[in-house]
């Protein structure tokens, strides 16, 4: 381990950090958080068992779905749809319908909504169904809104449906979904099932185990090679990003599984995928001596929403937007001092995440005044954030080597992973 104990930090880099010409990429939107979303029936809307697409001048797009008992008698679906744009909090869905007979006391339609793939532990929190009678409509043949409300957590998507009973003709021209309020972490956590941390649980020390999330471009970062040079064991989880569910398959979800690892490398994954419960556990894990490394490109420290996560307050930096340098940013040893690494290959990065170092954090690698690797001790453990990126088109004529192709890069990573033993 002696080789790694002399890690040189605070390397002097040629500073070509965000210039006026730098452009901010619009990264993947993994959390939409729109306050309003309208799903209106139009000429291309799919018909269901009990509905037919009809023109209707009073409908918002000129099209409506009609359930006509004369054509399709009996109960059944006349519409359903999913929405993905809402954040955690209270939602309201406004269904716009009309009937031809508002004197009918029978149930003529049922509106319902729930959150699919929700992590909320109580079904009633995330589901509501309302039966509408003919007499609930103020006028015949006049559109009227009916609403349902329920809760959404961090996970899941809106699943909305409308059923006709066959009691009378029903027209439907769409819904609007509103975000009525947003949950804070403190408000949300009690609604979610959380594993109980066993008393006396400690980090394993029998063997070096590192867990790495398999984000996009993970293979470029070379963590697996670094772990290989250390003779450690590496486990991994896979990032699955989908509007209906963003998750990490294989991430340690129990306290015991988490504490078997000395280091958790969150490689290019959003906080949402780790979940609010997972990040809460990671917070405790760091307090108890674990190391969390956050790196990445399209889903990393900036776009991954880490500043808003449970770990946000503990991060060594306040992340800003990722940026591209006008020219490569070269990694060089401070003041030209020799180290065990071969700097003659001129390792460089083309993109990095802008960030402000927080008080108490330590810059391990910087480009002039711009930090690239920053560490913060939290409790018995630490959080390390890497702000460089493997993004960018490498020009063969460009002097130097992309840092991820630099021969000594895995060793530098290895030194980071082990530095808690310094």
């Amino acid at each position: 381990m002696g080789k790694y104990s002399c890690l040189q930090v605070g390397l002097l880099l040629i500073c070509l950090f965000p210039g006026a010409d730098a452009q901010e990429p619009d990264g993947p939107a993994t959390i939409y958080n729109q306050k309003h979303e309208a799903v209106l029936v139009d000429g291309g809307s799919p018909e269901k068992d009990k509905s037919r697409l009809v023109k209707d001048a009073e409908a918002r797009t000129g099209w409506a779905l009609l359930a006509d008992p004369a054509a399709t008698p009996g109960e059944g679906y006349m519409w359903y749809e999913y929405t993905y744009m809402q954040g955690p909090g209270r939602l309201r869905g406004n269904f716009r319908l009309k009937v031809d007979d508002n004197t009918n006391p029978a149930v003529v339609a049922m509106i319902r909504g729930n959150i699919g793939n929700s992590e909320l532990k109580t079904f009633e929190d995330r589901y509501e169904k309302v039966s509408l009678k003919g007499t609930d409509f103020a006028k015949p043949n006049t559109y009227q809104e009916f609403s349902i409300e329920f809760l959404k957590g961090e996970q899941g998507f809106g699943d909305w449906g409308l059923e006709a009973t066959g009691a009378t003709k029903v027209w439907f021209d769409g819904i609007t979904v509103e975000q009525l309020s947003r949950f804070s972490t403190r408000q949300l956590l009690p609604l979610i099932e959380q594993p109980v941390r066993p008393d006396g649980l400690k980090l394993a020390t029998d063997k070096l185990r590192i867990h790495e999330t398999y984000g996009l471009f993970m293979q470029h970062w070379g963590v697996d090679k670094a772990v290989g040079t250390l003779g450690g064991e590496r486990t991994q989880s896979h990032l699955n990003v989908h509007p209906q569910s963003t998750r990490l398959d294989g991430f340690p979800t129990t306290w015991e599984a988490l504490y078997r690892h000395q280091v958790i490398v969150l490689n290019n994954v959003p906080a949402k995928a780790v979940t609010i419960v997972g990040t809460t556990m990671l917070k405790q894990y760091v307090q108890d001596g674990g190391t969390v490394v956050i790196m990445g490109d399209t889903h990393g420290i900036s776009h991954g929403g880490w500043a808003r996560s449970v770990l946000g307050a503990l991060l060594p930096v306040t992340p800003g937007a990722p940026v591209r340098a006008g020219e490569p940013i070269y990694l060089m040893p401070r003041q030209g001092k020799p180290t065990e690494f071969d700097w003659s290959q001129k390792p460089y990065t083309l993109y990095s995440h802008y960030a402000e170092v927080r008080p108490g954090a330590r810059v391990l690698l910087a480009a002039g005044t711009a930090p690239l690797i920053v560490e913060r001790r939290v409790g018995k453990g630490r959080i390390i954030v890497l702000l460089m990126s493997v993004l960018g088109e490498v020009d063969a004529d460009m002097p130097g080597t992309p840092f991820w192709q630099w021969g000594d890069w895995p060793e530098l990573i290895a030194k980071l992973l082990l530095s808690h033993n310094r």
Partner: protein
Amino acid sequence: MTKTTRFVRTRAIPTILCAALAILTLPAAAAGVPPWKAGHGTREVQDGAVLANDLVYVQGNGQPGPRYYPQAAVLRWESISEPGRYEVTLRARTGKHGASTLVLQAWVDSADGGMRYPTGYGVIPVPTAVLPMSGYMFETPGRWQTFSLAFDVESGKPTNVGLVYVGDKTCEAGTVEVEQSSVKLEKLDLPVSISWVRPVKLRYKHAESGTLEFRLTNATDQPQTVGLRPVVITDTDQTIPGPAQTFAVPASATVSGTVPFAVPAADGGYEAVGELTVDGKVIDRRGDVFAVADSPFRCMIQGSGVLRIPYFLSGSHHLGLEGFKKTVLGNWDQYVKDCTLAIESSRRAYLTYDEFFAWAREDATRLTEDTDEPYLSGQTFYVLSRRQILLVNGLMKAHGIAPVAYTNAIPFGWPGFEVARRRPEWMKKAMFNTAVMEKYFNGETVSGNVYPAIEMHFDTPSPVDGKTYLQFHTEQLVASVGQYGWEAYRYDAGPLSPEHFPITKRALAAIDPPVGIGNNLGINCLGTQPSDDWETYCRDDSLMMEENLAQAFHSPTNPHRRWLDFIVYLRHSSDLARSHGAQHTFINNGGNWYSTALGYVVGGHPWTFHKSPFGDCERFMIQYGSYFWDIRTQKLADPGGVVSVKSRRPLWWKPLVSERVLDETHRQVIVPLFNPPAEEEVVGVTTVGPAEGVKVMFQPRKDEQVTAWLVGPEPVSHRRQLATEPLRDRRLGVVVPRFWGWTNIVFDCREDQSGDSVPRTD
């Protein structure tokens, strides 16, 4: 008694030739004709005067496939070795109408060089001549009908002939009976015959030169010198003769040759015929159909022949990369033979178009390869290689079949992330699962819904060189055309926006030869009404696909489940595309021959066809498709106002009527007639009987002179004039000959320059 004669893939031989084709009435042995034998399932009835076979399907011989089993002969001859043209004749009857795969056919054993299709259900010989004798070919159940088949025996290719059953189920037409005394096999007195002929390509582009390839067989023991003249026949029976060339055919030999012909200037369907002459007199005439169009969409027939291309696309998935190397690249010579045969079977099914689904390493961003090393397609994990695609495309293009590349505007494959990594400004958001990604980059094949979707910013310049993603994507398309020779691209689930589509279309059109562009944008995407978006995507001969309609076949609650609803939707869908200048296609995988033929008559190109039991609709469309596919053919707004149909049983016709305006004084009103099945729902195709005694009445415009034509595929493609009867109110009527499934009446209307206001008919 009726007589049904077939000379494979030819028109009826004109009367003028009959003298030259006088049948030798020599005893069979003297003419080198062997005796026939009855098959295992054939029995003698009526004191041996009649042969009977129940055509009961017996699954067996370890080949349980649903489509084919070893061919059981009702009766057959021992193989014939003496070169020349022969004719087999017999009288037969069936107990009732019904589907059956009974055929009178000639074939050559594989040991003698005959073509055979190795299917998963056994090896089946490919006939050199065939006459279908399904139950629908018999005009009246229980009545004797004469069938005859002419075929050629080439030198060194002993040929079998017989009445065989190739079905996979018991014949619906019941027992077939053959009158023993009628069974004859005779050699015709034709010194030299065209024993095989066809245009080299099924579809020619205007800039190409036509070539008719043929084989001539000398039936005599003396060398013969003959002339061979190519003649192109239009779909209105106009002939365009080419220059004759002279060929020497040694005694009892078969020789191959080619003659050039000029590709007609007009888009459309044609027949290329070889006329064989001796001393200036035509003694034989034979040919096959072809289409002319620069656009592969214009005469598009998409589907598959008997054989699929081996280890291609989904057929390679199970091999994995290593298995592919061993099975395909490591066995290349055999693979070339297998592909050649498979594409030959496509050609024989009259395919003109073959789109490769999800073939690329990445659908939008990686459409070329630097090496022949096998790769996994990014969306589907199919195993492919540049070498394989070049082989398949080359074989297809040699037949005039257009290889077409599936594409998407946004990446649906894992290598797309490498573009996003290099140029992150282009990436908007993505859906993905890195568990699948890991397997892809490890070279492991995965099944199911395993692809990512990467939404892109199309107009954001890259800081590297200022290039936009749209430019990059379009450059990929153009480069791939350079590598593989695609004749068109079709966008699928990831379309170009209305703003970007014309830009890419222009870039593809600027390639020499121009490359077409299609979409998967139907009513469900662009709406039911004409719009600027319809105009943008359609104009100038795009291809528009309608995918939703396929649900009618799969979902019992689909609103288009009933035939009548299906037809209305199909017609409207096609009308939206065609009225804006595009060709139309629709997913027809779950369909049947009715949905296929309905697709044709609305000017569409069903995405996979289903063969009609009553005639070869695909061959028909190659020859006569212009009546429907010509973009000047458009839906007639008010067919009921000018056309009426009288039929004992209601036919489908009204929503299908079209008008083709050829110029200001010449138009055609095309009235398709469909004899509906028993079922109301689209999954039903049960035939209830032939349509007989149908009358079609038409009211021409003032000053129009009208000729009525019967144009149809049953039992073989035909176009013939119908007598018209003047009716009251300036209408005229035609009587439609009996048909089983589909026929068409074309009222050809020309402005009468005589000034006579009374409608005249030919």
